[in-house]
C-alpha cells in the first residue's frame, strides 16, 4: 500500500528518488515547451494554450489516478500530503503569483527548466524569486498573521463543496475537456488560422475517452472500503464465508504459553480496549483496518492474526475484512470475547464431570482463570500506545 516512503523507501533513499523524479519532471516540461516565456504566457493572450493543455491534462490524470488508487485501497490517503488550506494566503498569494506570471513570463518550475537550456531571462527571473523569498523571510513578522489566517486544515475540495469525491472528479474532468475544446477555438481565432497540430485526432479521443471512463467508474462504483463494510453487514454472507477460527481454550493456552506467533487484533472501541484487553493485543477499529498503520502490524511475518470483538459475529466480520484485504490466514475468536470471559476468565468448575477429556479441559480452564487475569493486569501497564503514522510533509 502506498505511499512507499518511509517504510519501503527510507528517507535517505528518498533524496535519490527525488533526483530521478526531478529529471523526468524537467525533461517533460522542456519537451512540452515550458522553457520559453513567449509560449508560457500565450494562454493569457489567447495565442498559445499549451500551458493550459499540459497543466490540466496532467492535473486530471494525476487526480483520477489518486482517486482510483484510494478507491481500490492501494494508497492510504490519510498519509499523503494534502496542501493545507489557509484561505487568505492562498488567494492573495495566488494573485501575486498570477501578476508575477504575466510580468516575468515564468513560474518557478519553468524558469529552472528554461535556465537549464540557457535562457538568460529565466536566470534573471530565478534571481528575482530569491529576492521575493528574502522579502517574505525578512518581513515574516508582518506577514505572519495573514499567512496563518483562516486555517481550514487539510480539507479537500469535495468536502468543502459538499459533494462526493467521484462527482467532483467527474465534473473537473468534464470542465477540463470543455476548456480544451473552447481554448482551441479561441486560439484559432486569435491566430487567424487553425492549428493543424491540435486537430482532434484519434489519440485525443482515446485519451479523453479513457479519462471519462475512469472518471465515470469512480463515480458509480462505491469505494472499496465502503463496499467491503457493506458486504459484511449481511449476516448470512458473513456466516457462510469460509474463515478459520480459534477456540477460547486454544487462545488461552497460547496466551499462557507466551506464544509469539500469534497477535491479537481487538476491534472493540478504544475505551473498552483500555478498560480490559488481552495480553499482546492491539486495538484497531474496523475502519482502521483499511489504513497503512494496520497493514504495518498485520503483515508482520510469521504471525497469525486473531481478530476479536465482544461477540462472535463481529469477530468474524473483522477476520473476513482482513481476509478480503488480502492478509494471510486471519482467524477469529470463536464465541468472541464474551465466550472467552465466560469459559476462561470467569470459569466455575461444574459439579458433574462426565469424561476424562472434560476433566482435563476443566482443569486447564481453572488454571487459566487464575493465570490470565494476572497477565491482563500486568499487561495493563504495558499497553503500547498505537504508533500513529504521520502525514507526510510536502509542499513548497
Amino acid at each position, binding site marked *: 500500500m*502506498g505511499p512507499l*516512503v518511509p517504510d519501503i523507501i527510507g528517507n535517505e533513499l528518498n533524496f*535519490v*528518488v*527525488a*533526483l530521478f*523524479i526531478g*529529471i523526468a519532471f*524537467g525533461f*517533460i516540461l522542456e*519537451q512540452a515547451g515550458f*522553457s520559453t516565456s513567449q509560449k508560457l*504566457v500565450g494562454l493569457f493572450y489567447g495565442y498559445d494554450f499549451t500551458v493550459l*493543455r*499540459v497543466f490540466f*491534462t*496532467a*492535473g*486530471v*490524470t*494525476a487526480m483520477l*489516478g*489518486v482517486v482510483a*488508487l484510494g478507491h481500490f485501497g492501494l494508497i492510504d490517503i490519510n498519509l*499523503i*500530503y*494534502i496542501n493545507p*488550506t*489557509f484561505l487568505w*494566503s492562498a488567494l492573495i498569494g*495566488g*494573485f*501575486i503569483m498570477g501578476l508575477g*506570471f*504575466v*510580468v*516575468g*513570463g*515564468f*513560474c518557478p*518550475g519553468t524558469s*529552472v527548466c528554461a535556465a*537549464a*537550456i*540557457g535562457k538568460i*531571462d529565466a536566470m*534573471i527571473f530565478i*534571481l*528575482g*524569486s*530569491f529576492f*521575493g*523569498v528574502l522579502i*517574505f*523571510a525578512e518581513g515574516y513578522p508582518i506577514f505572519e498573521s*495573514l499567512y496563518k489566517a483562516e486555517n481550514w486544515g487539510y480539507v479537500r475540495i469535495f*468536502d468543502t463543496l459538499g459533494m462526493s469525491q467521484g462527482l467532483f472528479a467527474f465534473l473537473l474532468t468534464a470542465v477540463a475537456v470543455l476548456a*480544451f475544446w473552447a481554448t482551441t477555438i479561441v486560439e484559432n481565432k486569435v491566430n487567424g488560422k487553425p492549428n493543424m497540430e491540435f486537430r482532434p485526432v484519434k489519440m485525443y479521443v482515446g485519451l479523453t475517452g479513457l479519462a471519462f471512463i475512469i472518471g465515470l467508474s469512480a463515480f458509480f462504483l462505491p469505494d472499496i472500503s465502503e463496499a467491503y463494510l457493506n458486504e459484511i453487514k449481511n449476516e448470512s454472507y458473513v456466516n457462510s464465508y469460509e474463515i478459520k477460527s480459534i477456540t477460547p481454550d486454544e487462545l488461552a493456552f497460547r496466551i499462557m504459553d507466551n506464544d509469539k506467533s500469534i497477535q491479537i487484533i481487538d476491534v472493540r472501541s478504544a475505551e473498552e480496549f483500555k478498560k480490559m484487553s488481552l495480553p499482546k493485543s492491539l486495538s484497531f477499529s474496523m475502519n482502521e483496518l483499511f489504513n497503512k498503520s494496520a497493514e504495518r502490524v498485520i503483515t508482520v511475518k510469521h504471525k497469525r492474526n486473531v481478530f476479536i470483538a465482544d461477540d462472535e459475529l463481529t469477530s468474524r466480520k473483522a477476520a473476513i475484512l482482513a481476509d478480503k484485504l488480502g492478509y494471510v490466514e486471519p482467524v477469529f475468536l470463536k464465541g468472541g470475547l464474551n465466550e472467552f470471559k465466560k469459559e476462561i476468565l470467569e470459569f466455575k468448575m461444574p459439579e458433574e464431570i462426565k469424561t476424562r477429556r472434560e476433566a482435563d479441559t476443566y482443569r486447564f480452564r481453572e488454571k487459566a482463570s487464575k493465570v490470565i487475569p494476572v497477565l491482563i493486569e500486568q499487561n495493563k501497564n504495558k499497553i503500547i500506545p498505537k504508533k500513529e503514522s504521520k502525514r507526510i510533509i510536502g*509542499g*513548497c
Partner: protein
Amino acid sequence: MNSTKYMNPYLAGFFLGLLLLGTIYITGRGLGASGAIKSGTVAVVQSIASSHTEQSKFYEEYLAEHQNNPLKNWLVFEVIGVIIGAFISGLISNRLKFTFERSPKIQVRTRVAAALFGGLLFGFGAQLGRGCTSGAALSGMAVLSTGGIITMMAIFGGAYMFAYFFRKLWL
C-alpha cells in the same frame, strides 16, 4: 540545425500526470519548485549572516525543520533533477543555447526589469501561498486539496486579470 518540435501538449500532460501520480504513490507528496528556491535563499542567508538566521523566526523555523542544513530538502534534490532533465531534453532537441528572450518591441532592459520583478513577485507569492504552480496548484489539484485549487484559480485568475496591463511586454 533547427530545433525539433515540441511534444504534443496532451501527451506531455499525460506523462506529467503519470509522473505526478507515481510521485504521490512512492513518496506521498507532490512535485514542487519554489520550495527549493526557499531552501537556496535560506542557505545563502545562513552562510553570509548566520547570526541573523538565529534571530529571525522564519529562518529559525525553517532550520529547525531541516536539522540546520537548509539544502537537505527533498525539493532541492528534485530541482537539481529538473535542471539535469531539462538539459538532457534541450540537448536531444537541439535547444541548448544561451539566448535572451524578449518581444522584439521591448528593450532588453525592460525585459530584464520585468523578469526580475516578476520573479520577485512569484517568489514572494509562492511563500505566502505555500507553493507555486507545481507545488500548490498542480499537486494540490491532484490530491483535490481545497487550498491547492483555490491557489490555482487565483494564479490563473490573477494572471488573466493583470494580463491586459502588461500586454506590451508580450504582444
